């Protein structure tokens, strides 16, 4: 769609113009091995992590996927303040410096877009066509939300915590990205207002200077550019809380008529794994090698990871490493020694402490949320 303006960096434009002139615009413009993040949407910014970059326990900040509902706000028009108000005894505001002086906690947690894997649903569904990499694992550091709510003196009438970021909508008709958390989840000691990501000040594309961290829950709860917290007796109004980020209570086929009462809000992620090495389409040598990946779930932790080599191969247990902290991921690996050349499929499936196992295919839903079908890569052994 090069006839459209607006999305290319200067370098890309030059490259494309040069390439276009030499070939009259036929053919691909970016080599598959070009480094970086996968561009899903440049305005607002949606970038996906190549799955092969997800092998380490922690995903580097500059490899971490980025999802934006609205544009990155201007940061620094005035000193950043986080306001807490609504049904509280006293309205409070904190500057970044004041937040840094409160007790800091560090929590490893998986951030995953609710729509990660949307591209696998059939029939296709609208939305960012995330493949497998709208997920990452970082150590988030900051202040417990409960410490702020305590200081403001939240009232017993309050049941929901409304969250608003600084990203402004382009039109007054465009809903703001306004969400709320049930009070109980807001008071969880693992729900934090993060100032740091993997030890560094929270980068702006990831919601810096402040972002809410809700371990175990889908990314739509992790409010970026957090500026305002309002205690209320009701859920947040508006499309993103009342209509968006909901799933049917039980799977419903395409075209089914669903009432609002048939829908429930997303909360916890489901159990899932990724094969991070080898990458899709990789060429390997005959002989022993290590296949590795990561696995996580929403509630509880991953207890088992199995891998199958070849279409008919038996499921073999892989070695799981790392902590069992709820909301974090574990790395896994398994030895594999293909003895003959050929094309092989590798499949991985995780099971969690609630006994949930990845299905072959996730039931279809119209928004394409929570894909967790058994992970697959195909590679060639030569």
């Amino acid at each position, binding site marked *: 769609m090069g006839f459209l303006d*607006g999305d290319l960096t200067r*370098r890309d434009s030059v490259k494309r113009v040069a390439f276009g002139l030499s070939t009259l615009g036929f053919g*691909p*413009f970016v080599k598959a091995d070009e480094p970086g993040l*996968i561009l899903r949407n*440049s305005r607002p910014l949606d970038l996906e992590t190549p799955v092969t970059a997800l092998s380490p326990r922690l995903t580097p900040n500059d490899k971490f996927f980025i999802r934006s509902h609205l544009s990155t706000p201007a940061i620094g028009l005035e000193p950043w303040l986080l306001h807490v108000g609504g049904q509280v005894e006293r309205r409070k505001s904190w500057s970044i410096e004041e937040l840094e002086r409160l007790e800091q906690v560090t929590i490893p947690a998986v951030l995953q877009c609710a729509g990660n894997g949307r591209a696998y649903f059939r029939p296709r569904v*609208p939305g960012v066509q995330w493949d497998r990499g709208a997920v990452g694992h970082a150590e988030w550091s900051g202040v417990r939300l409960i410490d702020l709510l305590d200081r403001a003196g939240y009232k017993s009438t309050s049941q929901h915590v409304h969250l608003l970021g600084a990203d402004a909508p382009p*039109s*007054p008709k465009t809903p703001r990205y306004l969400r709320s958390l049930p009070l109980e989840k807001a008071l969880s000691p693992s729900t934090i207002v993060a100032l740091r990501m993997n030890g560094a000040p929270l980068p702006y594309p990831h919601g810096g200077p402040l972002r809410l961290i809700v371990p175990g829950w889908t990314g739509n709860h992790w409010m970026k550019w957090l500026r305002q917290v309002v205690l209320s007796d009701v859920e947040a109004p508006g499309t993103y809380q009342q209509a968006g980020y909901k799933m049917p209570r039980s799977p419903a086929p395409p075209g089914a008529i669903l009432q609002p009462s048939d829908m429930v809000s997303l909360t916890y992620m489901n159990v899932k794994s990724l094969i991070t090495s080898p990458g899709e389409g990789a060429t390997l040598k005959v002989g022993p090698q290590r296949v590795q990946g990561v696995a996580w779930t929403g509630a509880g932790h991953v207890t088992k990871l199995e891998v199958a080599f070849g279409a008919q191969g038996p499921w073999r247990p892989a070695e799981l490493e790392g902590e069992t902290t709820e909301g974090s991921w574990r790395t896994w690996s398994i030895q594999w020694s293909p003895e003959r050349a050929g094309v092989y499929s590798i499949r991985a499936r995780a099971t969690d402490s609630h006994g949930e196992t990845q299905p072959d295919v996730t039931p279809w839903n119209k928004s394409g949320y929570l894909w967790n079908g058994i992970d697959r890569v195909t590679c060639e052994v030569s």
Partner: protein
Amino acid sequence: MEPSPITSSAGSNHQGRIHSRVLVGGFALSAGVVFATWFGAAALGRDEAKPRQSAPNVSSEEGFAEEEERFFAQQALRENCLICHSEQMISGQRLTSAQWKAEVEKMVGMGSPLPAEQSELLINYLSQEYSDTTPAHPVKYLSYDDAMKQIEPVPSPARIEGVDIEAGKGHFTTHCATCHAPSGIGGDLGPNLLEIASLFRQPDFREVVHSGRHRMPGFQTVLSPAQVDQILGWLQAQRYPALPEESR
């Protein structure tokens, strides 16, 4: 990149101007204009998903009609979708006609200024170009550093200082408020300008006010550079409204 006409890289401005010239060529739809449109797009690396292997068919009346439809559909897309979205948001989808219709209607509800009479044209175009059987585009990459350069949400260079903000408010009221609303939070034709990162990209801001973008005309003969900076100073001093608090 931001959902605002005042955001643009040098590259995209360049591209936009080329298209403006093509558009200025008029809608007479002589074969020359159609071919110029096609050629301009091809030279800039147009649609990788469905590269044309030959010049469009302009030798028949059907060919004209088809190209005319594409031409106006692409214009509708540019002027009504790309105010907020990048092209990948559209080209990454593979949807049925019914799904595209629902998406377009949803976006109109969210503030897209698409005129009702262009709705069918746009839906037909999207349904053909990005149907559920269209092959996927090759994957494109963007490095984190380049992404950061696109966003640049912090002052660089420093905030604009020492301009007459009140004068800026006056110029904004006279020249900008009709589309962007008196407060700057956006109206039917112009997007919100408050607290957006592009307020820190002063060269881009000046260029867009000077030359225009999408639906916006250029103000080069209307506003002096000093007046444009006054408007920018006023916009930087404005804040997007906070949430109301019932118990306040």
